[in-house]
């Protein structure tokens, strides 16, 4: 049986922007503390400078926390009563350094059904691209939400 999914397909191609997000040393240190990160490139200014950076590096998943600041519309999906965070992907494109200022731009990437042992679920995937103050793409984050009946 082919499932006829109904949702707002007009959302494809529409970008939802947020920012700027200032990547301060304090933000990086607070993130480090919450996950017990101790690598000197993420925690020590002098170590990062000796490696040629202007400040400490942001751990590669720090940007995933910023995604929730993008206001995303309801896609008006006609399926499911339970919705949960099913997966996440981060692709690092360039180093993110303390002092950077990032903009986020999110769009609907895909909506697809999948049937497995526990029944059918519909996955909604949003993709967010982070760009720094020089216009360089530093990371892409995909978040996948599953809906089930």
């Amino acid at each position, binding site marked *: 049986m082919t499932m006829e999914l109904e949702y707002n397909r007009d959302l494809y191609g529409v970008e939802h922007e947020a920012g700027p997000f200032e990547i301060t040393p304090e*933000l990086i240190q607070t993130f480090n503390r*919450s996950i017990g990160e101790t690598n000197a*490139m993420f925690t020590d200014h002098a170590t990062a400078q000796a*490696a040629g950076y202007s400040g400490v590096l942001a*751990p*590669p*998943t720090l940007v995933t926390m910023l995604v*929730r600041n993008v206001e995303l519309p309801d896609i008006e999906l006609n399926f499911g009563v339970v919705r949960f*965070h099913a997966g996440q992907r981060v692709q690092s494109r360039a*180093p993110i350094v303390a002092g950077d200022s990032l903009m986020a731009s999110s769009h609907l990437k895909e909506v697809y059904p999948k049937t497995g042992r526990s029944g059918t679920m519909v996955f909604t995937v949003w993709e967010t691209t982070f760009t720094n103050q020089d216009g360089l793409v530093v990371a892409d984050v995909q978040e996948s939400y599953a809906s089930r009946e």
Partner: protein
Amino acid sequence: MPDHNGPFFEDIDLGDEIGPIELVATDDNVANFCALWGNPMPNRFTSQEIAEKSGLPGPIVPGVMSMAIMSQALTDWAGPEALKDLDLVFRQPVPHNKPLLVSATITDTREEDGENLIECDVLMMGEAGERYVGGTAIIALPSNSE
């Protein structure tokens, strides 16, 4: 790469295993993470009562935080700039205050666009073999001939 203390590309073979690296997300770790994340508390990540109302046995570790923990385990091994791609599926709720065992198995090694890349299956498991989070990672390693 300055002061590289991690593995070199030539050291890696298909099937090699990394870890398991044992980590714990305490109640305090999760509360600090939620505060930084901007998620209003209490919530199902910090409150027993709210978690139970959502059908969970207890407060859970946010997926975003599970990813941060797995990323940390990988960058500890490979180096702070090594992780290029981490693609995870959240399979089961991840509990607080319990050992989380992060491991990886090398599934591919290749040179691409001048980089030495390894691909691996990554897993976060519980002590009783619960498969909490699974997925794949792509890591760039330096060559020992550079």
